[in-house]
């Protein structure tokens, strides 16, 4: 087993430099490898006093680490968690976090610094070569292993007894299906869930009021100033007598689809008739959920009627049916048809006509 002897054809020759061009060998090659340079002693190698100084420095670092650990424990016990302290240039920071962090940092860093300093000054720094062995086995080993494998394969009859082989492959291929089936109950099927929002309960006979997100009050058109942006949610309905409340168990799911953005624009500024007809006296109710990947849109420029999603900067022109004018969104924000009830409050009488939020494969609109 000449495993340790590396054969030249498996390794590039380090001296290829001077020989690689098929030139005659040069007697005194100026590029030849002069071999490892001689070791240059450090000060601590030749001066015992320097070595002792290094020893003291290493120990000092280790002692500092010990003191810092004591400091860490003391800080943990002594400092109240809510105490703030002014530290230049950080400003007011948590005293406990700062003290624990800095003492821990010193305790750890000094161990590291001590160990590295020890290695660099006092441990031998003589560079020495070690041989490399080829990763590949030699031909003899290779032939031997292949022969062993063939023997094993022949003894198993795997190649000869086709019925065993095929049924085994079949069973191994099928058994993971059990695991796949088990994943079925991870969640429900999509069905039409993404097509509707909580506004689906609104009908002309049972309209749902639009309720101000902040005040929890219904709104009239005159409550909304021209150029203002108001966030709204569904008011009382058959299934939610108090309207959508953040104490509702499914509040997060509901608001992820029902959230509205109300704007009031001078009717003569509206460029899209269809959109204008869905509104009431210039009040338009758009879905707040961006059609790109679902961030809530929250920035509105009243002069230009542009709404901007702060996540990926999709920009919609709310005076033009929320047309996408910039950014990665693929279609306009869905608009909710609104009107007023007998008391003059803004209401919805039907759901969005298209799914809100990011688009998906089954989305047909």
């Amino acid at each position, binding site marked *: 087993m000449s495993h340790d002897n590396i054969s030249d054809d498996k390794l590039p020759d380090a001296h290829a430099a001077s020989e690689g061009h098929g030139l005659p060998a040069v007697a005194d090659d100026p590029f030849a490898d002069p071999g490892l340079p001689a070791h240059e002693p450090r000060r601590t190698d030749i001066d015992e006093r320097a070595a002792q100084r290094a020893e003291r420095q290493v120990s000092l670092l280790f002692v500092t680490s010990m003191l810092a650990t004591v400091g860490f424990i003391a800080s943990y016990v002594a400092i109240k968690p809510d105490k703030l302290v002014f530290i230049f240039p950080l400003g007011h920071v948590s005293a406990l976090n700062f003290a624990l962090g800095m003492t821990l940092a010193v305790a750890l860093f000094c161990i590291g610094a001590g*160990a590295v300093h020890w290695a660099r000054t006092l441990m031998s720094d003589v560079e020495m070569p070690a041989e490399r062995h080829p990763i590949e086995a030699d031909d003899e080993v290779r032939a031997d292993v292949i022969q062993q494998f063939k023997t094993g394969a022949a003894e198993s009859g795997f190649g000869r007894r086709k019925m065993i082989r095929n049924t085994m492959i079949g069973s191994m291929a099928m058994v993971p299906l059990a695991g796949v089936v088990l994943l079925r109950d991870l969640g429900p099927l999509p069905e039409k869930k993404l097509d509707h929002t909580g506004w689906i309960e609104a009908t002309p006979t049972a309209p749902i009021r639009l309720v101000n997100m902040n005040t929890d009050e219904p709104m009239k058109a005159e409550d909304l100033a021209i150029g203002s942006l108001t966030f709204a949610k569904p008011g009382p309905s058959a299934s939610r007598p108090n309207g959508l409340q953040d104490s509702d168990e499914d509040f*997060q799911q509901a608001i992820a689809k029902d959230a509205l953005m109300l704007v009031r624009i001078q009717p003569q500024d509206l460029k899209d008739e269809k959109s204008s007809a869905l509104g009431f006296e210039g009040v338009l109710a758009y879905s707040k959920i961006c059609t790109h990947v679902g961030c809530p849109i929250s920035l509105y420029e009243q002069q230009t009627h542009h709404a901007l999603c702060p996540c990926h900067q999709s920009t919609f022109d709310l005076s033009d049916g929320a047309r996408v004018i910039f950014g990665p969104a693929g279609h306009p924000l869905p608009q909710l048809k609104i009107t007023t009830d007998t008391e003059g409050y803004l209401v919805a009488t039907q759901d969005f006509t298209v799914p809100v939020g990011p688009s998906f494969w089954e989305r047909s609109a």
Partner: protein
Amino acid sequence: MSSSPSTTPPATPASTRAKPANKGEAAADYLDGRLGIYSLAKANLRKIFPDHWSFMLGEICLYTFVIIILTGVYLTLFFKPSMGEVVYNGSYAPLDGIRMSEAYASTINISFEVRGGLLIRQIHHWAAIVFVAAMFVHMMRVFFTGAFRKPREINWVFGFLLLCLGFFDGFMGYSLPDDLLSGTGIRFMEGAVLAVPLVGTYIQMFLFGGEFPGTDIIPRFFTIHVLLIPGVMLGLLVAHLILVFYHKHTQWGGPGKTEKNVVGMPLMPVYMAKAGGFFFLVFGIIAAMSAIASVNPVWAYGPYRPDQVSTDAQPDWYMGFAEGLIRVMPGWEVRAWGHTLNLGVFIPLMLFPLVLALIAAYPFIEGWIIGDKREHHILDRPRNVPVRTGLGAAWITLYVVLLIGGGNDLIATHFHLSLNDITYFVRVGSFVLPIAVFYITKRWCLGLQRRDKEKVLHGRETGVIKRLPHGEFIEVHAQLPQATLHSLTSHEQPQPLELPSEVDENGVARKVGLLTKTRAKLSEGYFGEGGQIPKPTVEEHQEITSGHGHH
């Protein structure tokens, strides 16, 4: 197979080994008899490791991983991975009385109630940021020095998988607190999943256990974050390290260094002290960062609500290039036959792994082009392989341009630039800039090769000006020492592949496949005339030095 039970056992000694000299040796003997530690230590205790600062980058990855595991275990003792709703009544007054998930509430408690909890949380997060950064830089080191060549291609893949898993575990980790920022990140992920054709809505429902956000995603992310991904990573990490030991470390060329040796200092004691100490240095520095620099102050963002968002929402930096892809992509949507194909989101979703796969596949592509089956243990200087270096620089450029796209809002506000202009710049720049950078880098490398050649042939400028008898001024050049001459000339210069002649020896036209032609073309690009500067030969050197000695 013993004989009758009545006979006494033979009084032969259990082992012929010499008596241990002390208790330490006795303990080692005990373990050796059961674990075979002597054979293991024989090859490894005084194993030689070469020294170079760039070899520490991988160590930073290893140590930050250990720090993340240690602090992560501590955090699980206090964190509650639940989306059950509670009303907060803790010591952080601004959130008093606000509804939030238990996940968020317990994160607030870790930050304000548990003494040292904030420190550990910040160490965990900072270490994760440094971990991914160190993996990137380590990967770049391996790339630009050609350390991925045979026999290390598989280990390159292990490292690449660790990087990808690091991305995802980081993403899941900062999603767990269920704060306004991280919830926005999960919402983005939901939108991206929905964009997958055919199965998007099914994946979304199965992932979230229903409609977004549901109550399952945080507990599910928690299990994946603390168990599944770290488990796989630990396995890959161990395999990565075993291969580093088995292959022995690569080294820089130079006097005394060959493909058949490794020159350096022994594991015990030098690298035990240096590498062991370096763990504490890394840990200490990250602890100091966590003491002075706040990271992810979730209490300031508030709990997640799907209808609220903060401006300049950004993922952690390593997800920035994916964010860039999603931000600058035009909103293409194809609607037909009652279906929607959301290319504006789906294309970035596919480009994200593709950008990474480009660099992952590189060693195999280069290996195929060069057709070199030998082992390589001496590192390439980046200048000596200009095409590879150029491609690496181009890849980094693409990454950085996309990162700029991912932070377009921050760049717009900080530098008072138009956000739209930045987006247009990124759209064009991600195609144009990598190509430009490739050519610049390649020419730069060739220039450096020319300079090396010049130095070898004409020596180093001494700064001494001499006036010749006829009045000419010259600068005296000094011959480089042999060690330097060797270092500058010992690298290989592969020659481009040659296509077999059009006709074979019998004059019959030979069919050369398209693949073979492409390979020859690429090989010409790598090592042909424009790909490298022929290094000085001994003859050239002798001719010049035997002459008048300078100029």
